[in-house]
């Protein structure tokens, strides 16, 4: 589906492994559910794994998570492939997800998407050559009153204009803004 200029898939040449601290966090998440119902923590652990292992879920990562949650790998694949937040292909350091749904479109999200495409010289779904940015579109992110907007990591950037996009890209490039 998405294409990249550089082969980022090499990132996972090593088997992913949580730090002791992250592993304990995963265990704690599973304990938030009654005994035997710890599979409920799967989605949250996948979010954690994605954050830890390069912003996407490789087969190796999903298999690793299956081991932690003690379920079959297929149970992880079917969940990871259902929810749109999970990237099943490598992505750049920063993923811009621009909301494209009705209310955002009414106030210019199409223009913002084209502006970012031109500015970063990539199309929606692609990653910049330096591996810095991936551009995606998203369906309604619940920011309709503050549109147009994009999400990057946990952060919502709202009331976007071309100038704000310029500032945002510069800030991420310079490392001023956290992931």
């Amino acid at each position, binding site marked *: 589906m998405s294409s990249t200029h550089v082969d980022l898939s090499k990132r996972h040449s090593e088997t992913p492994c949580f730090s002791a601290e992250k592993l304990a966090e995963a265990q704690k998440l599973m304990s*938030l559910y*009654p005994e035997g*119902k710890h*599979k*409920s*923590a*799967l*989605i*949250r652990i*996948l*979010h954690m794994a994605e954050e830890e292992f390069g912003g996407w879920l490789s087969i190796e990562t999903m298999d690793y998570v299956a081991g932690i*949650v003690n379920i079959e790998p297929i*149970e992880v694949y*079917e*969940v990871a492939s*259902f*929810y*749109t*937040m*999970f990237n099943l292909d490598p992505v750049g350091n920063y993923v811009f997800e621009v909301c*494209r*749904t*009705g*209310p955002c*479109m*009414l*106030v210019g999200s199409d223009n913002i998407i084209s502006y970012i495409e031109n500015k970063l010289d990539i199309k929606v779904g692609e990653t910049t050559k330096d591996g810095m940015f991936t551009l995606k579109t*998203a*369906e*309604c*992110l*619940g*920011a*309709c*009153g*503050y*549109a147009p907007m994009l*999400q990057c990591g*946990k*952060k*919502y950037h709202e009331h976007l204009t071309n100038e704000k996009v310029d500032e945002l890209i510069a800030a991420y490039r310079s490392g001023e803004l956290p992931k």
Partner: protein
Amino acid sequence: MARKLLLEHDSVPGIETFEVYRKHGGYRSVEKALKKMSPQEVVEEVQKSGLRGRGGAGFPTGMKWSFLAKPEGVPRYLLCNADESEPGTFKDRYLMEKLPHLLIEGMIVSSYALGANLSYIYIRGEYMWILDILEKAIDEAYAKGFLGKNILGSGFDLDLRVAPGGGAYICGEETALIESLEGKRGNPRMKPPFPAVKGLWGCPTVVNNVETLMAVVPIINEGGDEYAKIGVGKSTGTKLISAGGNLARPGVYELEMGLSVEEFIYGDDWCRGIANGKKLKACVPGGSSVPILPAHLVTKTAAGEDRLMTYESLADGGFATGSMLGSGGFIVFDEDQCIVRNTWNFARFYAHESCGQCSPCREGTGWMEKVLNRLEHGQGNLRDIDLLEEINKKIEGNTICPLGDAAAWPVAAAIRHFREEFEWHVSHREESQTRNYGLLKESLVG
């Protein structure tokens, strides 16, 4: 018309902390309910209040609660639906960001009423930063003895947890939400059995929207009868409206049910009219799933009466000339917006979000998206308009969950009211690529 029950203190600095929230009267309803009321009395107050589900369906909350099965020795669960994903809706996000303790308070009282000792807030994954806010507030509530064992010495125990989704509109549907909370794909379940009988992990479960659970707090504080005095008829209390699109002042508003739509769009205290001094073309008053209304049916009903912000008034005229209050996602279109483009945009949304379980929805939403795409891009013909209506009828009512209806209604309504604009896209293929149709002739006349 500006009485606030939920947003009374939203602008107080630090209101997201326990201390400040408590100082402004927070957690009084927990003290009242747990110390002075039986669970059944809490349910009765909610029934008296006339509160209706604020997520979109508008089902009476007290009645929903009364359906909960109570087999001996089986746990019951209360789930808060914070999966807010209906395009045009962003009120729950605002409520949780500003007032996490109000949600916790509402959930304690509601869990007590339902006899649930373990409750979850299921929040859409994109709202991960709000999950942090909620967990921080929950930790505070535990530390202050409002969560955990033997709350306020009442003997009532409650654990409250937050679970994120992974990005799927369908998980706002309650059985899909339950599936997702069980760590699975969000495929809706067949009903019956309803969640009230077999929900989370096969146990009796109630799923309520964020705003609904928050509204329980003023209902218990002031009494159900007092709450029911606000509003008009069966639309009691206040409603949070997410106002977006081409408005001069978009944002989240709390209004007493019964405010006129005219006042809400144009009033100085509210949205202050259409942005940039333009004219109103259309409005989707309750989230993307509800029928779009052309300008002449937005502020007045077909009978010429003032349209009000209530469940009944917005639905006046049925689908022929009315719409729905839905989730309160109020989307306004100015004169320069293209209805065909917007209909295509919404159809693309539903095609993207269909879970794929039922063929009519999986295939139908994709078809509608493709047909609308070609109409919008100057490649359609007149038969396409009829084809859309035909596909619509094949989806509506033929799916496990309401996503099929939600996908079909906006397309049907757009064609019903804006057929001339769709036809113009066919008769003026090239022109339609360079300019928009503008206002409907009917709206121009009056």
